[in-house]
């Protein structure tokens, strides 16, 4: 073993003799961390191995949440996609189940996500696009017809209307004669990032947060296998945030949710094991790996030190990641296959638990079957042909990766401390502060891309003028889908007991204004075939509507 002094002397000698007198060009990571030309043991000498790095499957989980990582179980390859009608969705699910995939994923159309019924004339262009339309329990019954809910898990990409969709799912289970304590799945249910990036918010932030606490509380008592929320940094990253902001905003949101649930006297270990996270995988390989490692370490410390968690599962940051589409180019779209592979690699080397690879043409079109197929193949090649799944946290111990993990953790903590000083994540969103910071970062990044300071090969560097631009394939609206959906909705409205619908909607309003848990009243309304739009309208009467704060 060489001593510290020996290494330092050798490094100085190397710098003088090998690097010479010419200054080394300066470099920074995309989040602005200055990078050395080389990392040595001196860069990690202050790092307490057991406290900051440790072992996978153990606190602080820097190296992964499971002891054997992918040698035990590969990450879950979960490709997200949307389908037009409840019938098509049901057929597709039965196919997937027949092929041995037990995990389903539901994408909803935007009207369902934003609380509009399919017969609302203001949204007719959007019915059945980007996902399935659900107006009443009847649609949900069709989607899961012949699929026993205790034999599968379902992931729902749904946010402000998550409580309504959950109520429908529980009602389907009951109709199937399945005990709700046996059903499992995941709700996205992360409203704070909707105000920042994804844009399906309906109600103001405070009542929205209360709905989330209602879901967490209800599931704790009745649906213990449901992952109640997936707290996302992914969407804000795609909206322009850098990797440090991505994790800082995500973990600050998690703190806001936990504190909201605490107000009900629920202990951290009663619900934190059911929290999960969503991040983006970007193309800057080492910063991304460091980001994932830092995020796990930070959450473990927050859960243990700030929230006094005892159960290690409360401290584990389990996450789903999607490869970034914002690094894709519209020119020479096949190059995006390579970008997607590298982004996926950063996720896997960073210890992702579940992964979606973005289709190569997503910069300018809706993915085709061919590109979705290639995306799944990307994951399988990484898993089975490269050997990266054989060893847990394979980059751990790299002087560079350990030093960068530590730097990322410090910078993320810095942003989170600023948010705390400004009153927490909710207050910062209400004041528009986070929105402005994301906007500023997005604008700067876009300017750097247009000036060529951030390179996009084939687009702003090495552009081939003779190459013709690709023809875009866009999903065309099928007017039949809308007509069919509206017809079904009108039929249900004609058949149901209008008096009962009104009574149950009144009870939803009462529960909303009294502050009691909203779920029991929603389940009754859902069973009376009240529509998504009617339930949202009832809640709006009590909660009001969100008004966007200008962030530009």
């Amino acid at each position, binding site marked *: 073993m060489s001593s510290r002094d020996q290494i330092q002397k050798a490094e100085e000698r190397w710098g003088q003799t090998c690097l010479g007198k010419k200054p080394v060009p300066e470099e920074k990571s995309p989040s602005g961390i200055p990078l050395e030309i080389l990392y040595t043991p001196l860069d990690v000498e202050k790092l307490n191995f057991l406290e900051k790095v440790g072992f996978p499957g153990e606190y602080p989980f820097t190296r992964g949440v499971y002891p054997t990582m992918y040698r035990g179980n590969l990450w879950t390859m979960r490709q997200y996609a949307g389908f037009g009608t409840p019938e098509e969705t049901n057929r597709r699910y039965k196919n997937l189940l027949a092929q041995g995939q037990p995990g389903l994923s539901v994408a909803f159309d*935007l009207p369902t996500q934003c609380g509009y019924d399919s017969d609302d004339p203001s949204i007719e262009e959007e019915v059945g696009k980007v996902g399935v339309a659900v107006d009443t329990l009847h649609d949900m019954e069709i989607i899961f017809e012949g699929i026993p809910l205790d034999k599968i898990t379902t992931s729902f990409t749904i946010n402000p209307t998550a409580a309504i969709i959950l109520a429908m799912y529980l009602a389907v289970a009951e109709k199937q004669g399945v005990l709700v304590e046996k059903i499992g799945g995941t709700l996205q249910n992360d409203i704070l990032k909707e105000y920042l990036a994804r844009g399906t918010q309906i109600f103001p932030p405070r009542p929205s947060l209360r709905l989330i606490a209602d879901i967490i509380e209800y599931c704790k008592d009745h649906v213990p296998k449901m992952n109640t929320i997936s707290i996302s940094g992914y969407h804000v990253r795609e909206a322009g945030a850098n990797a440090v902001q991505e994790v800082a905003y995500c973990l600050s949101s998690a703190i806001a949710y936990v504190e909201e649930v605490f107000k009900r006297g629920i202990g951290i270990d009663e619900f934190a094991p059911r929290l999960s996270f969503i991040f983006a995988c970007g193309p800057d390989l080492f910063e991304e790996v460091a980001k994932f490692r830092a995020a796990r370490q930070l959450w473990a410390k927050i859960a243990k030190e700030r929230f006094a968690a005892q159960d290690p599962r409360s401290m584990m940051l389990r996450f789903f990641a999607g490869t970034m589409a914002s690094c894709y180019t519209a020119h020479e779209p096949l190059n995006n296959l390579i970008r997607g592979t590298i982004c996926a690699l950063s996720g896997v080397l960073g210890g992702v638990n579940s992964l979606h690879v973005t289709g190569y043409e997503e910069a300018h079109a809706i993915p085709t079957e061919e590109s979705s197929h290639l995306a799944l193949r990307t994951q399988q090649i990484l898993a089975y042909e490269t050997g990266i799944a054989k060893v847990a946290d394979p980059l751990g111990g790299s002087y560079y990766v350990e030093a960068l993990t530590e730097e990322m953790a410090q910078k993320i903590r810095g942003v989170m401390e600023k948010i705390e000083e400004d009153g927490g994540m909710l207050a910062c969103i209400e004041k528009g502060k986070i929105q402005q910071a994301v906007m500023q970062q997005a604008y700067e990044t876009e300017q750097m891309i247009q000036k060529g300071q951030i390179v996009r090969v084939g687009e702003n560097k090495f552009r081939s003028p003779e190459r013709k631009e690709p023809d875009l394939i*866009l999903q065309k*609206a099928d007017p039949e889908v809308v007509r069919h959906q509206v017809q079904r909705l009108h039929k249900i409205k004609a058949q149901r007991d209008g008096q009962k619908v009104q009574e149950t909607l009144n009870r939803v309003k009462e529960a909303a204004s009294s502050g009691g848990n909203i779920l029991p009243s929603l389940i009754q309304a859902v069973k009376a075939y009240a529509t998504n739009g009617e339930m949202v309208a009832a809640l709006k009467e009590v909660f009001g509507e969100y008004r966007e704060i200008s962030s530009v």
Partner: protein
Amino acid sequence: MVEKKKNPIRVLVAKPGLDGHDKGAKVVVRALRDAGMEAIYTGLHQTIDQIVRAAIQEDVDVIGLSILSGAYLGLTAKLMKRLKEEEIEDKWVILGGVIPREDIPRLKEMGAAEVFPVGTSFEEIIHFIQGKVRKEG
């Protein structure tokens, strides 16, 4: 040098429908402002009626629709119809977002002055607006 107009060019950047992808709209607003224009952003989830009302109230020279949901044909047709009903002829309509080249001629037939698909530089958009509004506005 083109002679400068007394008042800055006014542009309304609008997000029609439920599409929540607003990064493009917001960065374009910033770029237009940095180029000396007065750019107003409507925020998300706007109906065509709301957009036309805002355009009248704000007395803009240009209405820019940002659409990444694939609903550009229907939304543009609706906007042009409303403008006609209101007898508004002094405003240029431009589009940005995910729009295939093959549909650009149709959008121009409907009355769009120009279409800027994903990947367009700020410079192109600024240059086009300055040219249109100063020469013909």
